[in-house]
């Protein structure tokens, strides 16, 4: 069995034609592959999210993670870049969509691409995965406990709910949530599910008991092995169907 993969930092064209850094991980066996855009969480373009990209390559997908903070802090360490981006107000929604579109184009142009691309994001990236899926033509999207998809806008931030864009959802959506999470709370998840049902969208939600936010994060106390293990199985089953 030939299972070599290549993981490397590259430059891609993002929002507004800007050149931004990205982390690419892809199998090298030449077989047709679906692509996954990995959207990093708010703490940044970091080691743990690069590991997630490599995990997708290990499972047979071309993966790429755009550095959403490249413009704010090119070449900085992930934590310094995240702090800088935060001080500047965070990642604007339109810029996120443009960067994901650039990552999609990169994946579709790979010689082994099968033409299909999905997104996945965790925490703030969960919301951004949904945002990409209502803004771009995707084949699958995964929202891992993204807050502010539904609910109320939070005073003092520019972060607004985007559930009203549900009619524009372009692809099947997989949602993975913890029942002890407060953002998104079970009620927030209910609100999203109602919107998906009302618009006749293809979705699949899994809600885990005794599980809060960030349950996939193996380096955080919120890690819940049982929920995360099942979540990974659901992700690969979902992508297996649609990518």
């Amino acid at each position, binding site marked *: 069995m030939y299972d070599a993969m290549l993981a490397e930092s590259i430059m891609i064209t993002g929002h507004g034609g800007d050149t931004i850094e990205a982390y690419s991980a892809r199998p090298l066996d030449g077989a047709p592959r679906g692509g996954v855009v990995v959207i990093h*969480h*708010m*703490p*940044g373009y*970091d080691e743990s999210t690069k590991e997630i990209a490599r995990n997708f390559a290990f499972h047979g997908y071309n993966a790429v993670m755009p550095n959403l903070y490249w413009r*704010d*802090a090119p070449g*900085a*360490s*992930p*934590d*310094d*870049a*995240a*702090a*800088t981006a*935060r*001080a500047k107000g*965070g990642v604007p929604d339109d810029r996120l969509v443009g960067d994901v579109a650039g990552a999609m184009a990169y994946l579709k142009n790979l010689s082994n691409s099968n033409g299909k691309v999905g997104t996945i994001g965790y*925490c*703030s990236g969960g919301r951004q995965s949904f945002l990409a899926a209502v803004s771009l033509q995707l084949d699958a999207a995964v929202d891992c406990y993204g*807050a*502010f998809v539904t609910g109320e806008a*939070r005073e*003092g*931030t*520019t*972060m607004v709910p985007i559930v009203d864009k549900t009619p524009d959802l372009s692809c099947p959506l997989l949602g993975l949530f913890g029942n002890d*999470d*407060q*953002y*998104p709370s079970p009620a927030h998840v209910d609100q999203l599910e109602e919107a998906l049902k009302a618009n006749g969208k293809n979705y699949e939600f899994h809600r885990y008991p005794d599980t*809060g*936010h*960030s349950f996939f994060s193996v380096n*955080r*106390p*919120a890690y819940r092995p049982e929920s995360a293990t099942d979540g990974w199985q659901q992700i690969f089953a979902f992508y297996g169907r649609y990518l």
Partner: protein
Amino acid sequence: MCTYLTEKIAISGSAKGASGWIKVTEGTVYLDHPVHAPFGHTLNIDFLAPELGPAGRVAVELSQESARALVKAIEATLESAPPGLE
């Protein structure tokens, strides 16, 4: 969750980081996921020297209990200092 909320203040002083002492002119305070501290959310303070770029930063991540204790300690210290010190 990511709170997205950040308090920004102008400050005047110095902080010691990986490259030695730096003059800091901005501070940001936020409660969000830490990079290193073993908690889900921490009270994070960045002491910033913006002219040095993203690495011009001295950062702390404190448990919420620690942060409240720090606030009290700072207030108590300032209140008990002899008047007239600059």
